[in-house]
């Protein structure tokens, strides 16, 4: 049996530090919002001429007075991602750009993807993203409250907050782009982390009923160990699937799968080291779950 409980305090400190750092990052550095949430235009471009590279593209686009332009390689050497804010929300901007690029590059390039999100839509998307995440957290809280006692509910929710905040913190730290698919990833993380926590909690509750003489400090450790191989196997298969998406699923899914990979790692960690420690700190005992039974 692994003595997870020996490190409860250490990891609680670490988690608190992670949360604080993440919050500071989120407040002071902020998130790198993509055009979905900031508005603007995105062009994925494939070149068939080696003259077309990041610097020549940047030169071209900067001459066009589009505001802030970012040009990046996208996947392989011939693909580029160009983003700009399209400040005046010009209507025929794509046509203008084509005409302009034709002048320097002929037709040795091809627009593979064009996305243009107006300021109104991006504000709405951001709002609905925030609502979706808040709503999912609230629903999880309610669900777990119905299924368990409030101490469990609090533990699970703290673990969820930890996962969401730290994942976003990593995105902020490395300035990774936040777009619609990241919101989907965060929601899935919420579901996954909850799933992982619930399995351990289910066992904790069962053991609480079974043993009246074991303290919660020991009991959580027993429960974690009993469910440990399941935790490892499920995390492993989920990570295998996600790694397959990350490495082979194409550029578009990279951010999404990365967020999910981080989320699975944090989710697994938080189920053990946050959700359970809340139970310990709240001195959950056999009485807690028996009372729940009596009510029914």
């Amino acid at each position: 049996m692994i003595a997870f409980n020996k490190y409860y305090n250490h990891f609680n400190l670490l988690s608190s530090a992670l949360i604080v750092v993440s919050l500071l990052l989120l407040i002071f550095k902020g998130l790198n919002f993509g055009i979905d949430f900031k508005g603007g235009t995105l062009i994925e471009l494939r070149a068939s001429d080696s003259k077309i590279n990041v610097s020549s593209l940047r030169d071209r686009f900067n001459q066009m007075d589009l505001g802030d332009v970012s040009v990046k390689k996208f996947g392989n050497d011939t693909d580029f991602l160009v983003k700009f804010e399209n400040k005046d929300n010009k209507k025929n901007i794509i046509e203008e750009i084509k005409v302009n690029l034709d002048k320097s590059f002929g037709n040795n390039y091809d627009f593979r993807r064009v996305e243009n999100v107006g300021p109104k839509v991006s504000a709405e998307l951001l709002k609905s993203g925030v609502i979706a995440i808040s709503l999912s957290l609230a629903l999880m809280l309610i669900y777990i409250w119905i299924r368990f006692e409030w101490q469990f509910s609090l533990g699970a929710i703290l673990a969820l907050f930890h996962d969401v905040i730290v994942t976003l913190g990593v995105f902020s730290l490395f300035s990774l782009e936040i777009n619609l698919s990241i919101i989907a990833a965060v929601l899935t993380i919420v579901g996954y982390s909850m799933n992982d926590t619930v399995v351990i909690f289910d066992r904790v509750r069962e053991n609480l009923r079974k043993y009246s003489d074991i303290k919660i400090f020991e009991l959580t450790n027993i429960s974690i160990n009993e469910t440990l191989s399941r935790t490892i196997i499920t995390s492993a298969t989920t990570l295998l699937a996600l790694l397959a998406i990350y490495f082979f699923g194409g550029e578009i899914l990279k951010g999404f799968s990365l967020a999910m990979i981080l989320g699975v790692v944090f989710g697994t960690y938080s189920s053990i080291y946050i959700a359970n420690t809340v139970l310990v700190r709240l001195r959950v005992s056999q009485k807690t779950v028996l009372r729940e039974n009596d009510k029914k």
Partner: protein
Amino acid sequence: MLYFSKLRILFVTLFSVLFILIASSNLFKFDDSFFDKKINLGLDLQGGSYLLLEIDNEPVIEQKLQNLTTTIRNYFKEKNIKINNIKIDNQNIFFNVIDNDKQSVLDVFQDENSDLNPYYPRFKSHQLEIGDTGLNFKVNFSRQGLIKLKNSSQDQAIEIVRRRVDEVGTNEPNILKRGNNRILVELPGLDDPMRIKSLLGKTANLTFRFVTNDENDRFGVEKLKFENGLEEATVSKRIIISGENLLDAQPKMDTQTNQTIVSFTLDRVGAKRFGKATSTGIGKQLAIVLDGKIISAPVVRDTIASGSGQISGGFTFQTATDLALLLRSGALPAPLEIIEERTVGPDLGQDSINAGMIALAIGFILVIIFMFVKYKIFGLITNVTLIVNLFILLGVLTLFEATLTLPGIAGIILTVGMAVDANVLIFERIKEELKDETNNIIAFDGGYTKSRTAILDANITTLLAAIILFFMGSGPVKGFAVTLGVGIFTTLFSVYFIARLFTSIYVSKNKDKEKLI
């Protein structure tokens, strides 16, 4: 938990085979219409354009209020009530009356059978709201009135948008209302949306009006620019004919001048008015105005009584074709703005499908190897179940003709990774049971029973996340929610019916074997 009746075995087999058949209809062709369904590919996979249009209702409201001032004035004139200083300001109509008339004006607006101010009994609201301070009145659209107005302009706009898109002839466009002032246009397989975008961006408000030098024209005048943006002309506000009078418009080649022109035919009313105007206006310039710009302003040389004519204006064949198309499909009630556009080229879509399939195959193989190494015979059972699960999932998506997007494929891969969770929970529980239970059957039974709540809880939480995503997400993300959500149900089915069936067969054949798992 381990016992299976013959009936249930039959049911599970039939059910699985049915969905595998439905799923395989994506690869083969079936003659039967029930089986011959296919998963729709989202725009991000098959390529195409997604356009979100917003109707700018301001001009419509402005126009309605304009008309309303005339109606109000005339209406009360008939009743011998004098309306003074009527004017429009900031979407309100202001006017005042003399003391004696105040109550009668209020009565007209507040009467439920008023023909000036329609009453909607369903919403307990009038079309217009009236407020008064002393003898000054303020009239504006009520909330319901505005909603009605927006709905009707949306209805008209969507009809025009549909006609224009149909005229261009893309395959299976999807045109839907969003809210009460937006229209969603999905154009699968359209590589270059520029033409459609420019067609949808035009209101196509066509009018024929005389060019005048008389600043005091009875109908008012306005200065309009020519299409080329250089010249200007003063044009009367009196409309001779408008787009509504057109029966048909076609691009043609003028054999005399060798120019591309748009020839048009007028309806009876239009023909009559056009005839009259051309007979009285010989020698004058008739401006052809489209969306506030003059296309051309030819001099009237002859009375045109035939009800047909032509527009020239230095068109290329393409611009003439587009103008004719716009005129045929009619004017939009209000300008449209493209507020969101997402276009994916077909080759990127194909690349995404390939990448998604490779990722699915690799993820699948990795999970299968992992499970086999970890659980041997029971890993094999899990793997067979996983394959059947994948087919059932595809079958359900096919049956409902769901739209598969790139994030949707990611959802399927994720389902593969998470689907083993339930089986792992069960197997691990069985291992624990076997520690103090020697009877294999009892231990397996206990493993299934005792892991049930954890499995249910775990899946419900994921399902909740998927449901929220489905309702809040848009386009591709919705596709992810669908595969993730459906995946939960197919997983539970395959774990509790298929995997359990195999397990029960294996266990009852080897019930005396030690170290079964």
